[in-house]
Protein backbone atom coordinates (compact mmCIF):
# COMPACT_ATOMS: atom_id res chain seq x y z
CA UNK A 1 0.00 0.00 0.00
CA UNK A 2 2.82 2.32 0.96
CA UNK A 3 4.55 1.50 -2.34
CA UNK A 4 1.45 2.33 -4.40
CA UNK A 5 1.06 5.65 -2.58
CA UNK A 6 4.69 6.52 -3.31
CA UNK A 7 4.29 5.63 -7.02
CA UNK A 8 1.06 7.64 -7.29
CA UNK A 9 2.67 10.59 -5.56
CA UNK A 10 5.68 10.40 -7.91
CA UNK A 11 3.39 10.30 -10.96
CA UNK A 12 1.44 13.29 -9.61
CA UNK A 13 4.61 15.28 -8.96
CA UNK A 14 5.95 14.44 -12.42
CA UNK A 15 2.65 15.44 -14.12
CA UNK A 16 2.51 18.73 -12.24
CA UNK A 17 6.12 19.51 -13.05
CA UNK A 18 5.56 18.65 -16.74
CA UNK A 19 2.51 20.91 -16.84
CA UNK A 20 4.54 23.68 -15.21
CA UNK A 21 7.37 23.16 -17.70
CA UNK A 22 4.86 23.25 -20.58
CA UNK A 23 3.39 26.49 -19.25
CA UNK A 24 6.79 28.10 -18.91
CA UNK A 25 7.71 27.06 -22.48
CA UNK A 26 4.44 28.47 -23.82
CA UNK A 27 4.94 31.68 -21.82
CA UNK A 28 8.37 32.07 -23.36
CA UNK A 29 6.91 31.51 -26.85
CA UNK A 30 4.15 34.04 -26.10
CA UNK A 31 6.77 36.56 -25.03
CA UNK A 32 8.40 36.24 -28.45
CA UNK A 33 5.05 36.58 -30.18
CA UNK A 34 4.27 39.63 -28.05
CA UNK A 35 7.29 41.47 -29.41
CA UNK A 36 5.71 41.43 -32.89
CA UNK A 37 2.68 43.68 -33.26
CA UNK A 38 2.60 43.54 -37.01
CA UNK A 39 4.75 42.65 -39.96
CA UNK A 40 4.84 42.73 -43.72
CA UNK A 41 7.10 40.58 -45.87
CA UNK A 42 7.64 39.15 -49.33
CA UNK A 43 6.24 35.66 -49.84
CA UNK A 44 6.72 32.98 -52.46
CA UNK A 45 3.99 30.34 -52.45
CA UNK A 46 4.35 26.82 -53.79
CA UNK A 47 1.38 24.49 -53.87
CA UNK A 48 1.08 20.72 -53.94
CA UNK A 49 -2.64 20.16 -53.48
CA UNK A 50 -4.31 16.90 -54.61
CA UNK A 51 -6.21 17.42 -57.86
CA UNK A 52 -5.12 21.05 -58.18
CA UNK A 53 -2.50 22.45 -60.56
CA UNK A 54 -1.30 25.94 -59.74
CA UNK A 55 1.94 27.73 -60.46
CA UNK A 56 4.29 29.18 -57.87
CA UNK A 57 3.20 32.71 -56.96
CA UNK A 58 5.00 35.68 -55.46
CA UNK A 59 3.20 38.17 -53.27
CA UNK A 60 3.26 40.01 -49.98
CA UNK A 61 2.07 38.87 -46.58
CA UNK A 62 0.67 41.22 -43.94
CA UNK A 63 0.02 40.37 -40.29
CA UNK A 64 -1.38 42.39 -37.44
CA UNK A 65 -2.23 41.36 -33.91
CA UNK A 66 -4.33 39.66 -32.70
CA UNK A 67 -5.21 37.61 -35.79
CA UNK A 68 -5.29 39.69 -38.94
CA UNK A 69 -3.44 38.10 -41.83
CA UNK A 70 -3.62 38.77 -45.53
CA UNK A 71 -1.61 37.53 -48.47
CA UNK A 72 -1.80 39.73 -51.55
CA UNK A 73 -0.62 38.22 -54.82
CA UNK A 74 -1.61 38.68 -58.44
CA UNK A 75 -4.17 36.10 -59.53
CA UNK A 76 -5.91 33.22 -57.85
CA UNK A 77 -4.35 31.12 -55.09
CA UNK A 78 -5.29 29.02 -52.09
CA UNK A 79 -4.63 29.52 -48.41
CA UNK A 80 -5.69 27.28 -45.52
CA UNK A 81 -9.04 28.32 -44.08
CA UNK A 82 -7.59 28.02 -40.60
CA UNK A 83 -4.26 29.69 -41.22
CA UNK A 84 -1.71 28.65 -38.55
CA UNK A 85 0.31 31.82 -39.21
CA UNK A 86 -2.36 33.88 -37.47
CA UNK A 87 -4.21 31.27 -35.43
CA UNK A 88 -1.31 29.88 -33.40
CA UNK A 89 -0.25 33.16 -31.75
CA UNK A 90 -3.90 33.90 -30.92
CA UNK A 91 -4.53 30.40 -29.58
CA UNK A 92 -1.47 30.33 -27.32
CA UNK A 93 -1.93 33.90 -26.06
CA UNK A 94 -5.07 33.02 -24.11
CA UNK A 95 -3.38 30.79 -21.51
CA UNK A 96 -6.54 30.58 -19.37
CA UNK A 97 -8.48 28.86 -22.15
CA UNK A 98 -6.46 25.66 -22.23
CA UNK A 99 -4.37 23.28 -20.26
CA UNK A 100 -0.95 22.19 -21.48
CA UNK A 101 1.33 19.27 -20.78
CA UNK A 102 4.60 17.90 -22.10
CA UNK A 103 4.06 14.39 -23.46
CA UNK A 104 7.65 13.70 -24.49
CA UNK A 105 10.73 14.95 -26.24
CA UNK A 106 11.55 14.58 -29.96
CA UNK A 107 14.21 15.87 -32.30
CA UNK A 108 12.88 18.17 -35.03
CA UNK A 109 15.24 19.79 -37.57
CA UNK A 110 18.12 18.61 -35.37
CA UNK A 111 16.76 20.44 -32.31
CA UNK A 112 15.62 18.74 -29.13
CA UNK A 113 11.97 19.72 -28.77
CA UNK A 114 9.42 19.24 -26.04
CA UNK A 115 6.11 17.93 -27.38
CA UNK A 116 3.54 20.17 -25.73
CA UNK A 117 -0.11 19.19 -25.94
CA UNK A 118 -2.63 21.99 -25.62
CA UNK A 119 -6.15 20.92 -24.72
CA UNK A 120 -8.92 23.53 -24.63
CA UNK A 121 -10.94 23.75 -21.43
CA UNK A 122 -14.15 24.55 -23.28
CA UNK A 123 -15.31 21.37 -25.10
CA UNK A 124 -17.52 23.44 -27.41
CA UNK A 125 -14.55 25.10 -29.03
CA UNK A 126 -13.62 24.27 -32.64
CA UNK A 127 -10.14 23.17 -31.50
CA UNK A 128 -9.83 19.57 -30.33
CA UNK A 129 -6.12 19.47 -29.56
CA UNK A 130 -2.97 21.40 -30.41
CA UNK A 131 0.46 19.75 -30.42
CA UNK A 132 3.54 21.95 -30.45
CA UNK A 133 7.14 20.87 -30.78
CA UNK A 134 8.96 23.64 -28.90
CA UNK A 135 12.73 23.78 -28.71
CA UNK A 136 13.92 23.37 -25.13
CA UNK A 137 16.88 25.70 -25.69
CA UNK A 138 15.06 28.59 -27.37
CA UNK A 139 11.35 29.30 -27.27
CA UNK A 140 10.55 28.54 -30.91
CA UNK A 141 7.82 26.31 -32.36
CA UNK A 142 9.44 24.07 -34.96
CA UNK A 143 6.43 21.91 -35.63
CA UNK A 144 2.75 22.12 -34.79
CA UNK A 145 -0.36 20.05 -35.32
CA UNK A 146 -3.73 21.68 -34.85
CA UNK A 147 -6.70 19.34 -34.90
CA UNK A 148 -10.11 20.95 -35.27
CA UNK A 149 -13.61 19.51 -35.54
CA UNK A 150 -14.31 20.89 -39.03
CA UNK A 151 -10.96 20.92 -40.80
CA UNK A 152 -9.10 17.89 -39.50
CA UNK A 153 -5.41 18.27 -38.72
CA UNK A 154 -3.18 21.05 -40.03
CA UNK A 155 0.53 20.35 -39.60
CA UNK A 156 2.93 23.26 -39.84
CA UNK A 157 6.71 23.08 -39.98
CA UNK A 158 8.59 26.30 -39.33
CA UNK A 159 12.16 26.83 -40.51
CA UNK A 160 13.92 29.73 -38.86
CA UNK A 161 16.77 31.82 -40.18
CA UNK A 162 17.43 35.55 -40.24
CA UNK A 163 14.36 36.51 -38.17
CA UNK A 164 14.72 33.83 -35.48
CA UNK A 165 14.88 36.48 -32.74
CA UNK A 166 11.30 37.57 -33.41
CA UNK A 167 10.14 33.95 -33.93
CA UNK A 168 9.40 34.72 -37.56
CA UNK A 169 10.11 31.79 -39.87
CA UNK A 170 11.81 32.02 -43.28
CA UNK A 171 10.05 28.94 -44.55
CA UNK A 172 6.73 27.45 -43.55
CA UNK A 173 5.40 24.12 -44.75
CA UNK A 174 1.68 23.76 -44.14
CA UNK A 175 0.25 20.28 -44.57
CA UNK A 176 -3.48 19.79 -44.49
CA UNK A 177 -5.88 16.90 -44.81
CA UNK A 178 -8.12 17.26 -47.82
CA UNK A 179 -10.00 15.18 -50.32
CA UNK A 180 -8.72 15.12 -53.89
CA UNK A 181 -10.56 17.74 -55.95
CA UNK A 182 -12.78 15.89 -58.39
CA UNK A 183 -15.67 16.86 -60.63
CA UNK A 184 -17.84 14.24 -62.39
CA UNK A 185 -16.95 13.75 -66.07
CA UNK A 186 -20.40 14.80 -67.25
CA UNK A 187 -20.44 17.99 -65.15
CA UNK A 188 -17.02 18.93 -66.47
CA UNK A 189 -18.21 18.12 -70.02
CA UNK A 190 -15.07 16.06 -70.34
CA UNK A 191 -16.27 13.42 -72.76
CA UNK A 192 -12.88 12.96 -74.44
CA UNK A 193 -11.25 11.61 -71.30
CA UNK A 194 -11.77 7.95 -70.54
CA UNK A 195 -12.69 6.92 -67.02
CA UNK A 196 -9.87 5.64 -64.90
CA UNK A 197 -10.19 2.91 -62.30
CA UNK A 198 -12.04 4.28 -59.30
CA UNK A 199 -9.67 5.69 -56.73
CA UNK A 200 -10.26 4.84 -53.11
CA UNK A 201 -11.86 7.94 -51.60
CA UNK A 202 -9.15 8.32 -48.97
CA UNK A 203 -8.05 11.60 -47.49
CA UNK A 204 -4.92 13.04 -49.02
CA UNK A 205 -2.43 15.57 -47.81
CA UNK A 206 -2.17 18.95 -49.44
CA UNK A 207 0.95 21.05 -49.00
CA UNK A 208 1.46 24.79 -49.16
CA UNK A 209 5.06 25.94 -48.94
CA UNK A 210 5.72 29.56 -48.05
CA UNK A 211 9.12 31.19 -48.46
CA UNK A 212 9.08 34.44 -46.56
CA UNK A 213 11.73 37.13 -46.81
CA UNK A 214 12.35 40.82 -46.23
CA UNK A 215 10.29 41.11 -43.04
CA UNK A 216 9.41 44.62 -41.92
CA UNK A 217 8.35 44.29 -38.29
CA UNK A 218 6.25 46.72 -36.20
CA UNK A 219 5.67 49.28 -38.92
CA UNK A 220 2.20 50.19 -37.57
CA UNK A 221 0.30 48.61 -40.42
CA UNK A 222 -3.01 50.20 -41.27
CA UNK A 223 -6.16 48.10 -40.89
CA UNK A 224 -7.13 49.00 -44.45
CA UNK A 225 -4.49 46.53 -45.72
CA UNK A 226 -6.67 43.71 -44.41
CA UNK A 227 -9.85 44.89 -46.10
CA UNK A 228 -10.51 43.05 -49.32
CA UNK A 229 -11.37 45.28 -52.25
Amino acid at each position, binding site marked *: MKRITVILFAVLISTVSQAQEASSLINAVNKKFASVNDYKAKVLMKFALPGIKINTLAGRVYYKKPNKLRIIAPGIFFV*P*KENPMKDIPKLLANTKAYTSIITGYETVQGKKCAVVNVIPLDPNLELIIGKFWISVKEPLIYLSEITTKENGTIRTQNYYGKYKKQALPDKILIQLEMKK*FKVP*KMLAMDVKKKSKKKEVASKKTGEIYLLISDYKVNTKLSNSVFTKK
Partner: protein
Amino acid sequence: MKEFIAILKNELIKTIKRPRSFIGFGVVAFICLILQAAFANDGREILSLVTGQLENTLSIEGQVLNGNLICFVLLQTLIIQMPLLVALVTGDLVSGEVATGTMRFLLTRPASRTKVLVAKWLAGMFYTFLLLLFLGVLALFVSRGIFGADDLIHVNSEGLTVIQANDMNWRFAGAFVIAFLSLSVVATLAHFLSTVLDNSITPIVSTMAIVIIFTIIGMFDMPSFNVIQPFLFTTHMISWKDMFEDPVPKQEIINSCIILFAHIVVLLGSSIYIFNRKDINS
Protein backbone atom coordinates in the same frame (compact mmCIF):
# COMPACT_ATOMS: atom_id res chain seq x y z
CA MET B 1 -10.26 33.55 -111.02
CA LYS B 2 -12.09 36.85 -111.63
CA GLU B 3 -15.16 34.85 -112.43
CA PHE B 4 -14.83 32.85 -109.21
CA ILE B 5 -14.38 36.02 -107.14
CA ALA B 6 -17.52 37.47 -108.73
CA ILE B 7 -19.49 34.31 -107.83
CA LEU B 8 -18.04 34.32 -104.32
CA LYS B 9 -18.94 37.98 -103.84
CA ASN B 10 -22.44 37.25 -105.01
CA GLU B 11 -22.74 34.29 -102.63
CA LEU B 12 -21.41 36.31 -99.68
CA ILE B 13 -23.95 39.07 -100.30
CA LYS B 14 -26.76 36.52 -100.65
CA THR B 15 -25.72 34.74 -97.43
CA ILE B 16 -25.41 37.91 -95.39
CA LYS B 17 -28.62 39.45 -96.69
CA ARG B 18 -30.79 36.47 -95.84
CA PRO B 19 -32.94 37.09 -92.75
CA ARG B 20 -32.09 33.69 -91.27
CA SER B 21 -28.42 34.67 -91.14
CA PHE B 22 -29.27 37.20 -88.45
CA ILE B 23 -30.98 34.61 -86.26
CA GLY B 24 -27.56 33.19 -85.34
CA PHE B 25 -26.19 36.58 -84.30
CA GLY B 26 -29.37 37.30 -82.32
CA VAL B 27 -29.18 33.99 -80.47
CA VAL B 28 -25.47 34.40 -79.67
CA ALA B 29 -26.02 37.96 -78.41
CA PHE B 30 -29.04 36.93 -76.32
CA ILE B 31 -27.31 33.94 -74.70
CA CYS B 32 -24.13 35.91 -74.00
CA LEU B 33 -25.91 38.87 -72.45
CA ILE B 34 -28.36 36.80 -70.40
CA LEU B 35 -25.56 34.60 -69.03
CA GLN B 36 -23.37 37.60 -68.26
CA ALA B 37 -26.30 39.19 -66.37
CA ALA B 38 -26.95 35.91 -64.52
CA PHE B 39 -23.27 35.61 -63.54
CA ALA B 40 -23.21 39.21 -62.35
CA ASN B 41 -26.15 38.41 -60.03
CA ASP B 42 -25.63 34.83 -58.94
CA GLY B 43 -22.09 34.02 -60.08
CA ARG B 44 -20.68 33.35 -56.62
CA GLU B 45 -23.44 30.84 -55.78
CA ILE B 46 -22.95 29.07 -59.12
CA LEU B 47 -19.21 28.91 -58.53
CA SER B 48 -19.57 27.51 -55.04
CA LEU B 49 -21.23 24.43 -56.60
CA VAL B 50 -17.86 23.59 -58.14
CA THR B 51 -15.44 25.01 -55.57
CA GLY B 52 -17.58 24.03 -52.55
CA GLN B 53 -15.64 20.81 -51.94
CA LEU B 54 -12.46 22.87 -51.49
CA GLU B 55 -13.92 25.53 -49.28
CA ASN B 56 -13.99 23.28 -46.21
CA THR B 57 -10.22 23.41 -45.93
CA LEU B 58 -9.06 26.19 -48.24
CA SER B 59 -9.93 29.79 -48.90
CA ILE B 60 -9.76 30.82 -52.54
CA GLU B 61 -8.11 34.21 -52.87
CA GLY B 62 -8.39 36.37 -55.98
CA GLN B 63 -11.12 37.23 -58.45
CA VAL B 64 -12.46 33.81 -59.40
CA LEU B 65 -15.48 35.24 -61.20
CA ASN B 66 -13.82 37.13 -64.02
CA GLY B 67 -14.11 37.73 -67.76
CA ASN B 68 -11.88 34.81 -68.70
CA LEU B 69 -14.01 32.35 -66.73
CA ILE B 70 -17.26 33.79 -68.15
CA CYS B 71 -15.86 33.50 -71.69
CA PHE B 72 -14.88 29.88 -71.04
CA VAL B 73 -18.37 29.08 -69.69
CA LEU B 74 -20.01 30.84 -72.65
CA LEU B 75 -17.88 28.90 -75.13
CA GLN B 76 -18.73 25.66 -73.37
CA THR B 77 -22.44 26.49 -73.40
CA LEU B 78 -22.64 27.82 -76.94
CA ILE B 79 -20.61 25.11 -78.59
CA ILE B 80 -23.75 22.94 -78.18
CA GLN B 81 -26.03 25.46 -79.89
CA MET B 82 -23.65 26.82 -82.50
CA PRO B 83 -23.89 23.80 -84.86
CA LEU B 84 -27.64 24.41 -85.16
CA LEU B 85 -27.09 28.09 -85.96
CA VAL B 86 -24.43 27.22 -88.53
CA ALA B 87 -26.53 24.45 -90.12
CA LEU B 88 -29.50 26.81 -90.32
CA VAL B 89 -27.64 28.86 -92.91
CA THR B 90 -25.23 26.43 -94.55
CA GLY B 91 -27.78 23.60 -94.84
CA ASP B 92 -29.83 25.72 -97.19
CA LEU B 93 -27.12 27.13 -99.43
CA VAL B 94 -27.53 24.62 -102.27
CA SER B 95 -30.84 22.86 -101.63
CA GLY B 96 -32.61 26.20 -101.06
CA GLU B 97 -31.64 27.39 -104.50
CA VAL B 98 -32.49 24.04 -106.07
CA ALA B 99 -35.92 24.14 -104.39
CA THR B 100 -36.66 27.70 -105.56
CA GLY B 101 -35.34 27.03 -109.04
CA THR B 102 -32.60 29.67 -109.00
CA MET B 103 -29.86 27.04 -109.17
CA ARG B 104 -30.59 26.22 -112.82
CA PHE B 105 -30.34 29.89 -113.64
CA LEU B 106 -27.05 30.14 -111.70
CA LEU B 107 -25.58 27.18 -113.57
CA THR B 108 -26.30 28.75 -116.96
CA ARG B 109 -23.27 30.99 -116.30
CA PRO B 110 -20.01 29.82 -117.83
CA ALA B 111 -18.48 29.07 -114.40
CA SER B 112 -18.02 25.40 -113.61
CA ARG B 113 -20.27 23.65 -111.12
CA THR B 114 -17.25 23.11 -108.86
CA LYS B 115 -16.61 26.85 -108.69
CA VAL B 116 -20.26 27.57 -107.88
CA LEU B 117 -20.27 24.92 -105.14
CA VAL B 118 -16.94 25.99 -103.65
CA ALA B 119 -18.08 29.62 -103.65
CA LYS B 120 -21.19 28.60 -101.72
CA TRP B 121 -19.07 26.58 -99.31
CA LEU B 122 -16.72 29.52 -98.76
CA ALA B 123 -19.70 31.79 -98.14
CA GLY B 124 -20.82 29.30 -95.48
CA MET B 125 -17.34 29.30 -93.95
CA PHE B 126 -17.34 33.10 -93.92
CA TYR B 127 -20.68 33.12 -92.11
CA THR B 128 -19.34 30.59 -89.58
CA PHE B 129 -16.25 32.75 -89.05
CA LEU B 130 -18.33 35.90 -88.56
CA LEU B 131 -20.60 34.14 -86.06
CA LEU B 132 -17.60 32.89 -84.08
CA LEU B 133 -15.93 36.31 -84.23
CA PHE B 134 -19.13 37.87 -82.91
CA LEU B 135 -19.17 35.29 -80.10
CA GLY B 136 -15.50 36.01 -79.38
CA VAL B 137 -16.07 39.75 -79.07
CA LEU B 138 -19.15 39.34 -76.87
CA ALA B 139 -17.88 36.47 -74.75
CA LEU B 140 -14.28 37.54 -74.24
CA PHE B 141 -14.01 41.30 -74.57
CA VAL B 142 -17.43 42.27 -73.19
CA SER B 143 -17.05 39.80 -70.30
CA ARG B 144 -13.58 41.16 -69.52
CA GLY B 145 -15.04 44.68 -69.66
CA ILE B 146 -17.76 43.76 -67.16
CA PHE B 147 -15.96 41.31 -64.84
CA GLY B 148 -12.31 42.21 -65.35
CA ALA B 149 -9.54 39.79 -66.33
CA ASP B 150 -7.88 37.45 -63.86
CA ASP B 151 -6.61 33.87 -63.67
CA LEU B 152 -8.88 31.16 -65.02
CA ILE B 153 -9.97 28.25 -62.86
CA HIS B 154 -10.32 25.42 -65.34
CA VAL B 155 -12.09 22.34 -64.08
CA ASN B 156 -12.03 18.95 -65.74
CA SER B 157 -12.74 15.42 -64.55
CA GLU B 158 -9.13 15.04 -63.37
CA GLY B 159 -9.03 18.15 -61.22
CA LEU B 160 -8.64 21.86 -61.22
CA THR B 161 -6.02 23.98 -62.99
CA VAL B 162 -5.36 27.64 -62.31
CA ILE B 163 -4.17 29.31 -65.52
CA GLN B 164 -2.53 32.68 -65.10
CA ALA B 165 -4.21 35.72 -66.67
CA ASN B 166 -1.13 36.62 -68.74
CA ASP B 167 -1.27 33.15 -70.25
CA MET B 168 -4.83 33.47 -71.53
CA ASN B 169 -4.83 35.32 -74.87
CA TRP B 170 -2.97 32.71 -76.91
CA ARG B 171 -5.03 29.95 -75.33
CA PHE B 172 -8.28 31.69 -76.28
CA ALA B 173 -6.92 32.37 -79.79
CA GLY B 174 -6.11 28.66 -80.17
CA ALA B 175 -9.49 27.68 -78.73
CA PHE B 176 -11.32 29.90 -81.22
CA VAL B 177 -9.29 28.48 -84.14
CA ILE B 178 -10.19 24.91 -83.08
CA ALA B 179 -13.81 25.95 -82.52
CA PHE B 180 -13.83 27.41 -86.05
CA LEU B 181 -12.46 24.16 -87.46
CA SER B 182 -15.11 22.20 -85.52
CA LEU B 183 -17.96 24.39 -86.74
CA SER B 184 -16.52 24.23 -90.25
CA VAL B 185 -17.06 20.46 -90.16
CA VAL B 186 -20.71 21.03 -89.24
CA ALA B 187 -21.03 23.69 -91.96
CA THR B 188 -19.44 21.35 -94.52
CA LEU B 189 -21.68 18.47 -93.44
CA ALA B 190 -24.77 20.69 -93.81
CA HIS B 191 -23.43 21.88 -97.18
CA PHE B 192 -22.90 18.25 -98.26
CA LEU B 193 -26.43 17.25 -97.25
CA SER B 194 -27.71 20.37 -98.96
CA THR B 195 -26.03 19.16 -102.15
CA VAL B 196 -27.46 15.64 -101.84
CA LEU B 197 -31.00 16.62 -100.86
CA ASP B 198 -33.29 19.00 -102.75
CA ASN B 199 -35.49 20.00 -99.84
CA SER B 200 -34.29 23.07 -97.92
CA ILE B 201 -35.32 21.93 -94.40
CA THR B 202 -34.16 18.28 -94.49
CA PRO B 203 -30.39 19.04 -94.65
CA ILE B 204 -30.66 21.33 -91.60
CA VAL B 205 -32.63 18.78 -89.58
CA SER B 206 -30.41 15.90 -90.76
CA THR B 207 -27.24 17.80 -89.76
CA MET B 208 -28.59 18.41 -86.29
CA ALA B 209 -29.73 14.78 -86.01
CA ILE B 210 -26.21 13.59 -86.91
CA VAL B 211 -24.62 16.01 -84.41
CA ILE B 212 -27.01 14.90 -81.65
CA ILE B 213 -26.54 11.16 -82.35
CA PHE B 214 -22.75 11.45 -82.52
CA THR B 215 -22.66 13.57 -79.35
CA ILE B 216 -24.73 11.01 -77.44
CA ILE B 217 -22.50 8.16 -78.65
CA GLY B 218 -19.47 10.20 -77.58
CA MET B 219 -20.86 10.93 -74.13
CA PHE B 220 -21.08 7.36 -72.90
CA ASP B 221 -17.94 5.65 -71.72
CA MET B 222 -18.87 2.17 -72.95
CA PRO B 223 -16.49 -0.32 -74.59
CA SER B 224 -18.72 -0.74 -77.68
CA PHE B 225 -18.86 3.04 -78.20
CA ASN B 226 -15.19 3.55 -77.38
CA VAL B 227 -14.22 1.87 -80.67
CA ILE B 228 -15.99 4.43 -82.85
CA GLN B 229 -15.66 7.51 -80.65
CA PRO B 230 -12.20 8.56 -81.96
CA PHE B 231 -13.59 8.77 -85.51
CA LEU B 232 -16.62 10.90 -84.71
CA PHE B 233 -16.13 14.58 -85.43
CA THR B 234 -18.21 15.48 -82.37
CA THR B 235 -15.54 13.86 -80.14
CA HIS B 236 -12.99 16.32 -81.53
CA MET B 237 -15.30 19.33 -81.55
CA ILE B 238 -14.53 19.89 -77.88
CA SER B 239 -10.77 19.84 -78.47
CA TRP B 240 -10.75 23.61 -77.96
CA LYS B 241 -10.93 22.81 -74.23
CA ASP B 242 -7.53 21.14 -74.47
CA MET B 243 -6.05 24.62 -74.95
CA PHE B 244 -6.75 25.19 -71.27
CA GLU B 245 -4.93 22.11 -70.02
CA ASP B 246 -1.54 22.48 -68.37
CA PRO B 247 0.60 21.43 -70.17
CA VAL B 248 -1.29 21.79 -73.44
CA PRO B 249 -1.63 18.30 -75.02
CA LYS B 250 -0.23 19.40 -78.41
CA GLN B 251 -0.29 15.97 -80.05
CA GLU B 252 -3.92 15.35 -79.04
CA ILE B 253 -4.90 18.76 -80.44
CA ILE B 254 -3.00 18.14 -83.69
CA ASN B 255 -4.66 14.71 -84.05
CA SER B 256 -8.10 16.23 -83.46
CA CYS B 257 -7.41 19.00 -85.99
CA ILE B 258 -6.27 16.43 -88.58
CA ILE B 259 -9.45 14.38 -88.06
CA LEU B 260 -11.63 17.50 -88.29
CA PHE B 261 -9.78 18.68 -91.40
CA ALA B 262 -10.10 15.21 -92.97
CA HIS B 263 -13.88 15.39 -92.43
CA ILE B 264 -13.97 18.73 -94.24
CA VAL B 265 -11.91 17.42 -97.18
CA VAL B 266 -13.99 14.23 -97.53
CA LEU B 267 -17.34 16.01 -97.19
CA LEU B 268 -16.42 18.85 -99.55
CA GLY B 269 -14.89 16.42 -102.06
CA SER B 270 -18.03 14.28 -101.94
CA SER B 271 -20.21 17.40 -102.39
CA ILE B 272 -18.24 18.41 -105.50
CA TYR B 273 -18.39 14.88 -106.90
CA ILE B 274 -22.15 14.57 -106.35
CA PHE B 275 -22.97 18.11 -107.49
CA ASN B 276 -21.07 17.67 -110.75
CA ARG B 277 -23.13 14.59 -111.57
CA LYS B 278 -26.45 15.84 -110.27
CA ASP B 279 -29.44 16.55 -112.48
CA ILE B 280 -30.93 19.87 -111.54
CA ASN B 281 -34.49 19.45 -112.74
CA SER B 282 -36.30 22.30 -111.08
